[in-house]
């Protein structure tokens, strides 16, 4: 009766075991010899990643505990995304970790714990499971954000994150409780069945509460205000992981939830319009506010807010219940989320490098980087331009998918906003480029990249470029992931 195929949970179990195992190892070995933690983490993540790839292509879709927990390509796609993100964060933070005042050994396990939380979120088809996964991720992030325990800014960021995140969880939970009250269940399929097409003030209230909860995670305006502060205050690798992982996990959950509402509700029209307006505002405000920023992390925070707006467009594109259109929108989001990882990780890896070498992360610290560290400058340029959607970088294809999906639904105006805003975003991205290229950075040290950082940025750069020129493989993956969701 009960489907207890634990094999389907393999990646999650591996992650949990590895995380705890690494914690224990960190405790066991003497503080001076914790260098081994890094390769161990990298190989653990690589192994898991390899397995998830195998999982994606060769293991059939299945539901664990009869739909309490889903194992479909959609979830696995996101797992690949999270693991890639985690891996890149770990790789790029090798040197950075040594600047932490203490507990360097626990950093990697915590990253893995957060990854696990994200994976749970992507797989959960039960609202409570999703919530617990979300909290695992979030609570871990509280710790990670405050990891520089002697840094007032980091602590401030963490406490802000904690308060706001908890408040948003509270309202999310309130929404879940209302849904539960309506349907008697927390399981998505059953909720969908029970809700049917009837709607009442309660369903609307629940939807709004849930939207607020997810909107917080994906930093949708007006639920975004935490993001800039936390991004700026957190250690750069953590910011990176927040930007790519937390946001993608939020989207994974949002998509599942949104599909649920799509199937069960006739609330499409207004809900969509509201979301469209939100997406537009998010793109506009995110991009415009990024313009006057002087701190690169804060700028990237606003940029990532804007990116959420773009991705939300793809979600909205899932409007009329026909399979092909479904795929269009979801595929676009999936594709974009993945390339967003590479682009953002490239930018953050360079930012990590600069911050670690120069102690701060203002745009002026990047002056003359093209001379001082040419590779880093090139990768930074490529990454931010990919975020802006300039070909031949992957962001262009991603944006194309997103906007063509939404235009196919007849929402042309949002495409204008989106395209124009992404071109305006070039303005502030070019601010960084200008800093890096215009002068030769007299008086600043040469900071060539080495080792893991070099590998990270090269990898992100090449991936961004290759996926921009030949996006077919990733697009195919995104399609099969999207298809698995609506099957």
């Amino acid at each position, binding site marked *: 009766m009960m489907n207890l195929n634990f094999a389907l949970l393999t990646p999650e179990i591996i992650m949990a075991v590895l995380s705890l195992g690494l914690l224990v190892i960190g405790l066991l070995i003497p503080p001076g010899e914790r260098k081994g933690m890094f390769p161990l983490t990298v190989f653990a993540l690589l192994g898991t990643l390899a397995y998830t790839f195998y999982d994606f292509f060769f293991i059939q879709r299945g539901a664990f505990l009869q739909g309490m927990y889903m194992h479909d390509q959609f979830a696995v796609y996101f797992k690949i995304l999270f693991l890639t993100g985690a891996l890149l964060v770990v790789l790029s933070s090798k040197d950075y970790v040594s600047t932490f005042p203490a507990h360097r050994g626990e950093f990697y396990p915590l990253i893995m714990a957060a990854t696990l939380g994200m994976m749970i979120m992507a797989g959960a088809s039960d609202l409570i499971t999703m919530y617990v996964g979300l909290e695992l991720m979030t609570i871990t992030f509280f710790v990670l954000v405050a990891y520089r325990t002697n840094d007032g800014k980091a602590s401030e960021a963490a406490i802000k994150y904690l308060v706001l995140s908890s408040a948003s969880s509270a309202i999310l939970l309130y929404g879940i409780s209302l849904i539960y009250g309506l349907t008697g269940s927390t399981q998505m399929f059953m909720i969908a069945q029970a809700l049917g097409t009837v709607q009442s003030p309660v369903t609307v209230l629940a939807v709004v509460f849930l939207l607020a909860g997810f909107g917080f995670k994906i930093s949708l305006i007006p639920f975004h205000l935490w993001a800039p502060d936390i991004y700026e205050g957190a250690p750069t690798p953590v910011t990176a992981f927040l930007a790519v992982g937390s946001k993608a996990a939020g989207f994974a959950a949002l998509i599942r939830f949104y599909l649920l509402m799509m199937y069960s509700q006739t609330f499409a029209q207004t809900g969509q319009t509201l979301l469209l307006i939100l997406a537009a505002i998010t793109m506009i405000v995110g991009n415009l506010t990024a313009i006057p920023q002087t701190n690169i992390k804060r700028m990237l925070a606003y940029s990532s807010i804007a990116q959420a707006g773009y991705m939300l467009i793809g979600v909205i594109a899932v409007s009329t219940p026909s399979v092909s259109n479904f795929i269009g929108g979801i595929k676009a989001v999936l594709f974009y989320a993945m390339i967003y990882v590479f682009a953002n990780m490239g930018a953050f890896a360079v930012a990590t490098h600069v911050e670690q070498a120069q102690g701060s992360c203002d745009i002026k610290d990047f002056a003359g980087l093209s001379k001082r560290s040419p590779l880093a400058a090139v990768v930074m340029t490529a990454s931010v331009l990919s975020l802006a959607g300039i*070909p031949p970088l992957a962001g262009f294809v991603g944006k194309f998918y997103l906007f063509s999906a939404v*235009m196919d639904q007849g929402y042309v105006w949002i495409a204008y906003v989106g*395209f*124009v805003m*992404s071109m305006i975003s070039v303005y502030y991205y*070019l601010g960084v480029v200008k800093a890096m*290229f215009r002068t030769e950075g007299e008086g600043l040290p040469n900071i060539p990249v080495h080792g893991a950082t070099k590998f990270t940025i090269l990898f992100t750069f090449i991936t961004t470029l290759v996926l921009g020129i030949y996006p*077919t493989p990733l697009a195919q993956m995104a399609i099969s992931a999207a298809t698995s969701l609506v099957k």
Partner: protein
Amino acid sequence: MSNSFILLMTLLAPVLALFIIVFIPREETKMIKIVAAIGTFAALALSVFLFFAYDKSVGGLQFTMTIPWIRDIGVNLGLGVDGISLPMLLLTNLIGFTAVYSSWNIDKRVKDFFVLLLILITGVMGTFIATDLFIFFLCYEIVVIPIYIMVIIWGSTKRVSKEYAGMKLTIYLLIGSAFMLVAMVALYLNASHQLAVLGQGPTFMFAELAQLQYDPSFQIIVFGLFLFGFGSLISMFPFHSWSPDGYAGAPTAVSMIHAGVLKKIGGYGLIRLGVLVLPLGGRFWAPIIAVLAIINILYAAFIAMAQKDLKYVVGYSSVSHMGNVLLAIAALNITSINGAVAMMFAHGVMAALFFSMIGFIYEKTHTRNIGDLGGLAHQMPRLATGFMIAGMAGLGLPGTVNFIAEFTIFNGVAKVMPVQAILGIVGIIFTAVYTLRVIANVLFGPRRAEWDHLKDIRGPELVPVVVLVFVIFATGIFPNTLFHLIDSGVYTSGLAKVLETVGQATIGGLF
């Protein structure tokens, strides 16, 4: 159909050079320059070969290569040339090649410069040889950012700072392209719905897009968007203001490529995408384009008269000349489209030569202010000759290809819009005035002792003059070499048929 890889080779020649340069140490500037020159020369040689190997009697797209690329949305890696794109390809490589030589004396961050220049050349080239709309856009947008970087590093600050100029240029073109992207997506979706009815997958191929029928109101809107995008690119009034500032701020090679070929993407796009695919939209917008084109011609020419900086003069003059191209497109007939393509070619060569010469003048004298210069013909006769030929080509002197292009345009325009044609011709006067003033004030007049130390252009610096002047006169004296090709392009690309149907509606006899 079997794929021909010669275009791919042409496209990849500069890329290959780029990769080699990446691995050359920064200090080996000579080597870097030579590799860049070889790369661009290979592309030039291949395009010259294509120019002569193209079978004009058959026409249509030749040397095509179509490889499915992004399958889920139907993008093909489609390359091919016809009589419209081949001159543009040749032009690109001519200017690319000469741009390398015009930058021969660069000594600041040489490696970066040539890497960016080669990206730029590749991008522009790709735009012209793409037979797939997606690839077309991809290549077009590639070029924008390298230009920005080149402007802020190697540019010069005059009336406006180079940072401002570069940013203005970049953002302007990108905003324009944003609207084009919307249009492109709309077109693609419309086409794919039509194709889906026919049981075919979506496509971005120009040829297939052109064969479908679109709703007139759809065409009008989409053409309008393209007009904004491509119009900004071709510096159509009132979207031209990036152009003079941008050229003034940019380093020589960028000005050459930008004014020479990049701008032409606007005209090329309007023909290939606007008129060919959306003829009814074109017909709707034609009167408006014509009016704006006239404003372009006269307004920019007047402003050029008031300029004191050489690059601003040429910048405004190129705005003015692009008015001719727009006017030709607005006329929507075979002759005028022929003229438009030829004008783009002619102006490209001329503008490149002009900017190249100005670049040398600036490099040697460190000023571009017309008032500070004078009598340069004494010290630098070869440069003066090149400069003067550029000027003469600019004012459409017979013997240069520019004259024929202008004549063809006016001829075509006069068939449908005689008044506009007359106004366009009147523009020649003002062109003559500012060009001759510049020539007189810069080159002629008493010998100035402060320039006596200047060396005339020689060695590699002569390459741009020789190559571009040769092209100006060779095609100017034997226009059929160029025009037969363009004409075959106009007829065999389906443009002629489209124009005949659309043109019927606008032709109202003479006057």
